[in-house]
């Protein structure tokens, strides 16, 4: 294990992400299928923000119990009452949607029963149609975002990379949603916020990898000794350490929010958001390595230019193998000249 880590650290590791892409495709297809089944069978556990309803938060006083709270709130009018513990020192009560007067009544009842000023009882009332508006806006945002990113990446890189990145991104969204469906985690607007942010991260990672692939493959001439696939894999292995590092560094603060949100505050924006981010970033890291790049390679290998190169390399390898098996072995994995990791020939140029 220590050996793997130190090799990772030095960037020496050579995992054949691209060559084994059938495995990853299979894995992703299975995950996607599972997610879709989860979404159909279980559906998402939508929070009160999407269903409409009222939420009350108030500090816990000694001796208050779930039953007491339910009775107190119930006596004030509402019928559908859910009492939850929110973090270390507060309660959260969810009811159906109430109007202003009813809200005041519940606040007063709770404040009186548990001996606190009225204003200590926070309230939130969400109209039934609000959730629909939030999700509609989110869908529009998603669509606009995808188009903007497609255009941007097509200009900054090329359309195949843009397409691969978007496919990876949809993959992340569906799988994250699937995890939510199976786990029954509550979906709130904060969760959607998290989903949308994942898009940014998922792409950020893919962009770093693609940037390296672009650099490496741009040096592949007709006499190159590597195919596009091999060069891409080389670039990917090379940026692996960086991808893992950037992902880890991105996940660490999110994990901190998740920890604080869960232990200190309980239910709420912090927890919902960070949970979505946490799940999404892990899926995102996987997809930028095992989905985005393989798709890109699959697309690229269809181009005549790279097909021709692949044939030449294959032919050269066969003949080289006959001549000297050693040479062939070295040429491919180490990437001696063309298509090698950047920097090797820079000294001569600059």
């Amino acid at each position, binding site marked *: 294990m220590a050996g793997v880590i130190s090799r990772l650290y030095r960037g020496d590791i050579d995992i054949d992400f691209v060559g084994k892409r059938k495995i990853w495709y299979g894995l992703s297809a299975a995950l996607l299928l599972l997610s879709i089944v989860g979404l159909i069978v279980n559906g998402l556990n939508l929070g009160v923000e999407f269903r409409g309803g009222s939420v009350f938060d108030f500090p816990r006083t000694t001796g208050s119990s779930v039953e007491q709270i339910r009775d107190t709130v119930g006596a004030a009018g509402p019928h559908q009452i859910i009492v939850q513990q929110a973090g270390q020192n507060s309660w959260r009560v969810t009811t159906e949607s109430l109007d202003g007067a009813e*809200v005041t009544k519940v606040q007063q009842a709770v404040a009186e029963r548990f001996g606190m000023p009225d204003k*200590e009882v926070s309230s939130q009332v969400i109209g039934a149609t609000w959730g629909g508006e939030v999700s509609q806006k989110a869908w529009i945002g998603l669509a606009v975002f995808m188009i903007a990113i497609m255009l941007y990446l097509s200009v900054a890189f090329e359309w195949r990379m843009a397409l691969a990145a978007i496919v990876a991104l949809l993959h992340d969204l569906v799988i994250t949603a699937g995890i939510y469906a199976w786990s029954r985690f509550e979906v709130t607007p904060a969760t959607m916020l998290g989903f949308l942010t994942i898009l940014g991260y998922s792409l950020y990672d893919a962009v770093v990898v693609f940037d390296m692939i672009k*650099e490496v493959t741009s040096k592949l001439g007709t006499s190159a000794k590597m195919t596009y696939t091999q060069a891409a894999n080389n670039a990917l292995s090379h940026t692996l350490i960086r991808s893992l590092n950037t992902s880890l560094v991105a996940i660490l603060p999110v994990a901190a929010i998740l920890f604080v949100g869960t232990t200190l505050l309980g239910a709420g924006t912090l927890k919902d958001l960070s949970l979505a981010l946490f799940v999404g970033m892990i899926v995102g890291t996987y997809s930028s390595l095992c989905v985005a790049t393989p798709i890109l390679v699959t697309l690229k290998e269809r181009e005549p230019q790279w097909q021709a190169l692949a044939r030449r390399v294959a032919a050269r390898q066969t003949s080289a193998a006959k001549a000297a098996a050693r040479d062939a072995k070295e040429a491919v994995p180490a990437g001696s000249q063309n298509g090698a*990791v950047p920097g090797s020939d820079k000294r001569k140029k600059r």
Partner: protein
Amino acid sequence: MAPPTSSQSRPGRTLLLLLALILAMGATIALQKAFVPKFGLDLAGGTTVTLSPVTTTGKAPPSESIDRAITIIRARVNGQGLSDAEVARANDNIVISIPGVGQQEALKLVSTTAELRMRQVLAAASAKEQPAQMPTAAPTPSGSASPGAAASAGASATPNAGATPAGRALSSALTAPTPSPTARHANAATGQHANGATGRKHGARGAGAKASPTPTPSASPSAAPSAQASDDPLAGQDTSGIEPALLDQFRKIDCTAKNRGQGAQDDPSKQIVACSDDGTVRYILDKAAVQGTEISGAQAGTDPTTGEWIVQVNFKSKGASQFADITRRITSLPAPRNQLANVLDGVVVVAPTIEEAIPGGSARISGNFNQTSATELADQLKYGSLPLKFRQSEVTSVSSTLGQDQLRGGLISGAFGLLIVVIYLLLYYRGLGLIGVASLIVATVVTYSIVTILSHNAGFRLSLPHIIGLVVSIGITADSFIVYFERIRDEIKEGRRTLRSAVEVAWRRARRTILVADAVMFIAAIVLFFLAVGGVAGFAFAMGLTTLIDILVVFLFTKPLMAVAARMRFFAKGHKLSGLDAERMGRTSPAEQTMQEA
């Protein structure tokens, strides 16, 4: 793309530039003595209402209507004395933030529909009963009387005693010379004339749909003789046909008070007492003669012949006949009963004198408008034609205790997240990690300064979504350093000659990656900011801001600092703790290479 040599020589200057920038922000903060950002209500405690306006038919309202609705709601909120309340637009929604909890009453008021109705003026007086008031009022009117209106209208008759007669169609009260503020206020003043004050200003004439300024010389009843000095605002006025209860109400009402009835739901089938929207005139008004929804349109424009600003109002068919009826009926009455008040959301926005019957479904209001006041009036009338209903989409009231908890949670997770990233950077990158940590500190300082300055100068309020956005973005900022550090290590591994040149070459490549990746984040932030609702926009704002700060810090701090560090023995020689040592790189250290090649 400066050649390495020149960029190498500049790190000091770049660092000084950044230092100057930070000092400038620090000085701004110190000068304003505003060291802590202002917090949003989810952290400070308070009530936030999100209203979703829809038209009465349930359709999405036009954008101008929402803006107008915001102005109306702001007036209502101010009328309630909730001076700290903020009313802001968030895409198609209106967000009202009221500090303090227990504002259920205020909420009810805020979300009622604002309607426009036209009612005949039955009696009018200046805002307060003090006799002293009268004199004040008087000057205005008379003094200026003549201005533009006269000319334009002038057209014909000019009968009016004091002032300029002339308006054309429905003339608005405005004609008054406008003392200072906007013409409209002046106009309100004109209203006073009604009250028997002296100056009679507006003339009005009916203009047909054809707009022709036909100068029908209406004999406007300029009569309006002497002002009486009685204490009773109703002295000398005809009170016939007015419900007695209203007379008392009229005597008592103080239109100069903050709450002068904004948002009051006036029953169209009853007579009411109302104030002008600027609080200078009070009125007793008859039952509604025309509903605002019968207006089909209103535009501000200039009269082609006189260049005077006017407002053209068009009515739907039912409204047109109602309007024709009421104008025909009241035009011959003595002032103020020949005025037709336009009541929007409980206050009179304009009460033009009707100088002749106006058939044809189209009228012009003229007076002393300027472009702003004419446009404002046209907007108000237009709004009345399409009143909006406000759906209370979300009402959140956060106690200050809960707010503090959330703030604490946000700050703890921020500190905690920063700490783990720092530890990670130091463990993994050792000496290089120090540079990364320094960059994070600079980024934190810059972010804090910008947030503080924005909150004191641009109305920015730090809320929980912002804090989360900022914490999450620690990762983005650190990503940039990692991209750069890994590039440097690549260069060295592959046999760059010295750390100093490796730093430059790696920068040129890392720079592109950082910019492209940041651009993606920035696009995400912009899209979310403009399209999302609620907290998402705040989160997106924080993300966009940090992305920009990230670029600033990497370019102005990390890179130059790295260039400086490359000159130090500790890094250049690949010290064991530098993060660039031979063993950890799996290759020869830069120093050894240098020796070998030398």
